[in-house]
């Protein structure tokens, strides 16, 4: 079974802090994604990566950066957290892009 694991289920951070959200998958998938989910807006793509050290901006990359040093790990970084980044963050991975995506359990981040 494919497993996508996010490092935290719940996180509370202060405004201005640097925040790291970690995601690990165990099935050798090339593609990994970070989404944020807000009520009524569905899932919005922040960044994705199709290979180690490769990254592409999604629809809402502002205020975020990513790192993919190893194939199995994709990190989302909030350089200076702000209250409008309070949200549910979901990590996903796939083989080819038009195939089934496997998701982590999500990280609910609150920035105070």
């Amino acid at each position, binding site marked *: 079974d494919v497993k996508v694991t996010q490092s935290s289920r719940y996180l509370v951070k202060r405004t201005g802090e640097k925040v790291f959200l970690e995601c690990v998958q165990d099935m050798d998938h090339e593609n990994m994604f970070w989404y944020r989910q807000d009520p009524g807006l*569905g899932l919005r*793509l922040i960044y*994705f990566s199709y290979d180690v050290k490769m990254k592409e901006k999604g629809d809402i990359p502002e205020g975020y950066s990513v790192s993919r040093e190893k194939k199995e790990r994709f990190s989302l970084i909030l350089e200076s957290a702000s209250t409008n980044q309070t949200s549910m963050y979901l990590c996903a991975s796939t083989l*080819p892009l038009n195939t*089934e*995506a496997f*998701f982590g*359990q*999500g990280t609910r981040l609150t920035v105070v």
Partner: protein
Amino acid sequence: AQKVTQAQTEISVVEKEDVTLDCVYETRDTTYYLFWYKQPPSGELVFLIRRNSFDEQNEISGRYSWNFQKSTSSFNFTITASQVVDSAVYFCALSDADSNYQLIWGAGTKLIIKP
């Protein structure tokens, strides 16, 4: 531009009723893929189905069925004899060449099944 519309924000039914979740999509491509995912209260999205644009056959999996109609650009999802465990948020999504096969998501429909 591509778009996925799930007009029903929230649906509430009593257990054992049938319920249909609507999904309408927009794309200019002739080759595209449609998906449904379920997000239970635990938070993790679970894949339910993928359908490509050349396969208009309806699909049935147990109590779940999907009706794909290209003529109306719809890919609706029906749960027959609903159960409390079906309570979740359901997302419809589209991927096509125009989006570089990234998923375009609907806003989701929250389904509440009352005992």
